[in-house]
């Protein structure tokens, strides 16, 4: 634990990627194998199920630090991280634990089944006898995700340096479901183990947004274009008569989309498809809002399956006849995919091709992109015809070229403090539009991105001076500031007070030149619904 807490402290003491990688590499070179497995697991967002609910933790932390619960809660809103708040309010200690990270995690896993009184004693014992960083790390292991400015990619890079195993191979080994409490370091990282690969997805290749004019990409004949679909990126694996569906967040979502089970009967074993899960009510592509109703459900009801069925819009094949074909050029992979699709089309599977398009000049591409909203896409994807399927977000071969967002001018009405690096700063905003009579502002969206740090700071200072009312962590503010809000899509919604749901709203510009009377109305927004 000492070494792990030291590692976190070191990672916390620098903003430079190279130093973070160096600190991680040094740790991987020295740590015990079991501790390494846990470190890898934690930094790739695999943690044991939470053994104590956070409500109890808050109560106990306020008890131990001898402050009223409301004061603990207020502190938590301001600090923006539960483990950090607990580590700060509990009486300080200089002590350190000799127990390993692995021992702590074994204890934490065992804790889940214990009665509350035992849990409480265990927490008190550790909270009181660990120094700040160890206490913070210990509490973080219990409360949840370790978001400390180290991405999985960065961790993988350090692991590659320490083990001298290729980074892409490591990324593949770390994919999918593995249980850090059961697997050994040898098995996870060092050994080759074919049978484990049954359900394993490939790391997704992710595109960057195009930076300037598409002409700069060169001769259009070297590029393939397709529409950019707005659903859930997914890999569907068919191996050994079994099917696995993975989302981009490396979540196994097979059970959420039972429509795909039929694939097993038709698509040959040793096939992995890359595509987009899209809602398909009434035999046409629906809105992301439709898909939203499916995402959260673990058990999908028959009714919901009928109301919002899904399809896989396939755009690539990563494995074919049991072989990794990622190295083949995109054009070759597409041939395999298209042949497969046409050979099984008569089975009427919930599978469609993401059609590729060939343009003779960039101007044609520009025009097709304009057409995106009509075909329910977000814009175009450009893929180099001779490109292999790479690992992670890499520049050069794949570009996303989204349509310009829809926009509306709205008034800032509520603000809430952010989390993590935005703690203690009001950065999460709610925006309103005028009702018909321009009398009242109706909330229509929340947004927390799009401003510079400097703009956030100045808005934060303004909010603190212009608060009307406080509701826990939320403040209502004097309607004064107008922002241009951009969003990707819009649909009617019964769940929203305004009757409208917008997709990925964010602040495009702070319209300091506009008065609140000049902001748009809800009617203006509704007029944008296709």
């Amino acid at each position, binding site marked *: 634990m000492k070494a792990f807490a030291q590692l976190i402290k070191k990672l916390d003491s620098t*903003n*430079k990627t190279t130093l973070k990688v160096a600190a991680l590499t040094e740790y991987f070179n020295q740590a015990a194998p079991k501790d390494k497995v846990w470190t890898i697991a934690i930094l790739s967002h695999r943690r044991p199920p939470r053994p104590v609910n956070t409500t109890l933790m808050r109560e106990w932390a306020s008890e131990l630090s001898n*402050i*009223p619960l409301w004061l603990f809660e207020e502190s938590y809103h301001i*600090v923006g991280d539960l483990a*950090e708040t607990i580590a*700060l309010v509990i009486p300080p200690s200089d002590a350190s634990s000799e127990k390993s990270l692995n021992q702590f995690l074994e204890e934490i896993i065992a804790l889940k089944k214990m009665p509350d009184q035992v849990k409480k004693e265990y927490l008190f014992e550790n909270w009181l006898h660990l120094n700040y960083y160890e206490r913070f790390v210990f509490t973080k292991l219990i409360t949840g995700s370790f978001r400390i400015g180290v991405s999985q990619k960065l961790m993988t890079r350090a692991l590659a340096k320490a083990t001298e195993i290729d980074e892409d191979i490591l990324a593949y080994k770390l994919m999918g479901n593995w249980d850090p409490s059961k697997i050994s370091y040898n098995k996870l990282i060092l050994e080759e183990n074919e049978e484990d690969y049954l359900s394993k997805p490939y790391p997704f290749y992710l595109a960057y947004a195009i930076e300037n004019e598409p002409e700069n990409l060169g001769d259009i004949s070297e590029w393939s274009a397709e529409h950019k679909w707005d659903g859930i990126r997914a890999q569907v694996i068919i191996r050994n008569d079994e099917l696995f569906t993975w989302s981009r967040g490396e979540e196994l979502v097979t059970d959420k989309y039972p429509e795909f089970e039929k694939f097993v009967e038709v698509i040959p074993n040793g096939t992995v498809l890359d595509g987009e899960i899209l809602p398909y009510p009434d035999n046409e592509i629906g809105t992301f809002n439709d898909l939203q109703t499916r995402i959260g459900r673990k058990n999908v009801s028959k009714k919901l399956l009928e109301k919002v069925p899904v399809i896989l819009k396939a755009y690539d094949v990563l494995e074919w006849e049991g072989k990794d074909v990622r190295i083949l050029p995109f054009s070759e992979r597409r041939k395999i995919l298209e042949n497969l699709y046409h050979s099984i089309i008569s089975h009427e599977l919930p599978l469609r091709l993401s059609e590729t398009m060939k343009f003779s000049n960039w101007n044609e591409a520009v025009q097709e992109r304009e057409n995106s909203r009509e075909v329910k896409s977000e814009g175009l994807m450009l893929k180099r015809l001779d490109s292999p399927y790479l690992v992670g977000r890499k520049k050069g071969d794949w570009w996303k070229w989204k349509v310009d967002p829809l926009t509306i001018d709205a008034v800032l009405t509520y603000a809430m403090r952010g989390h993590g690096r935005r703690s203690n*700063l009001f950065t999460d905003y709610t925006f309103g539009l005028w009702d018909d009579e321009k009398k009242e502002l109706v909330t229509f969206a929340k947004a927390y991105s799009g401003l510079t740090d400097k703009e956030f700071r100045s808005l934060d200072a303004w909010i603190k001076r212009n608060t009307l009312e406080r509701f826990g962590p939320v403040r209502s503010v004097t309607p004064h500031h107008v922002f241009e809000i951009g969003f990707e899509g819009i649909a009617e919604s019964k769940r929203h007070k305004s009757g409208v749901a917008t997709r990925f709203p964010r602040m495009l510009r702070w319209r300091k030149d506009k008065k609140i009377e000049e902001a748009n109305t809800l009617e203006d927004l509704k007029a944008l619904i296709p």
Partner: protein
Amino acid sequence: MRPPLLAFNQNGIYCEAADVYLDPWKPVDKAIISHGHADHSRYGHKKYITHHSNVPLIKHRLGEIEVSGKGWNESFTINGVKFSFHPAGHIIGSAQIRVEHQGEVWVFTGDYKTEDDGIAVPYEPVKCHTFITECTFGLPAFKWIPQDKVFEDINNWWQENRDNGQTSILFGYSLGKAQRLLKYLDTSIGQIYTHGAIENMTEVVRELVVMPPTTRITRETKKEEIKGNIVIAPPSAHGSTWIRKMVPYVTGSASGWMTFRGARRRRAIDKGFVLSDHCDWQGLLQSIKATGCEKVICTHGYSDIFSRYLREQGYDARTEETQYEGELGQLEADKEKESE
């Protein structure tokens, strides 16, 4: 009922009986000033009254002003109201202002801290009926560690950076924090360089306190000579073109806000040192207790939260809106530009 001895109006904290203001934020005829930070000593008053040691500091910031200086505990009377200055320990020359009239005593803290930093005259509790206190860090999450320990960390950090061939850049606001930092730097490690704004202010402070030698960074300063040394700069220098001369460098910030991991990450600073010129949670509570007061008025900081807690502890506590900014203002705003 007679009006309260001190009231909060649009100009500042007003004493009607004496017709004077305490740390006003709008221009007034007569202002009694607690200390030299920009949010407490503003431009445009006709007359300033402050502690002796604050006189050169506000003159440096505000130029030629009409100001009279008083000693510690030296009382002076205006319209029958008795005023005196008492050490606040916040920065050099910082005072609490005691106001007494017809047997009633109020104390306004300005900004203060309970730890003796070896530069400012240490804070002394003053008995009063009503205590007007700042509460910049009025949350139980704030707990300072003794400054010796913090400076040990800072010097170790400097040494480590130097060993790695890097320059250390340490941010602190130009009046107070900057001098506190450079006074305790270990000059056996290397040399101390300063940003112009810091050096200007330090020259004024040198008249009052002994400081280690520093070198001002100018256009003529060679890149090679700075390497491995430490540079003290105002927070506003972070991300400016001025800083490029120091490459390769590591940045650090010394502030109470560095308690929060997010505050450091947000500012893209490498290393945070928790070092404040304000009271921490316990410091505030102990100070209030030591005054023996019944009423507490909380000004800038987490005032709503802090006053609610005080009410639960049996005090008659409330919040008043002011335009003081505390350390947040010092850290976030580009106040430093004024003194460049």
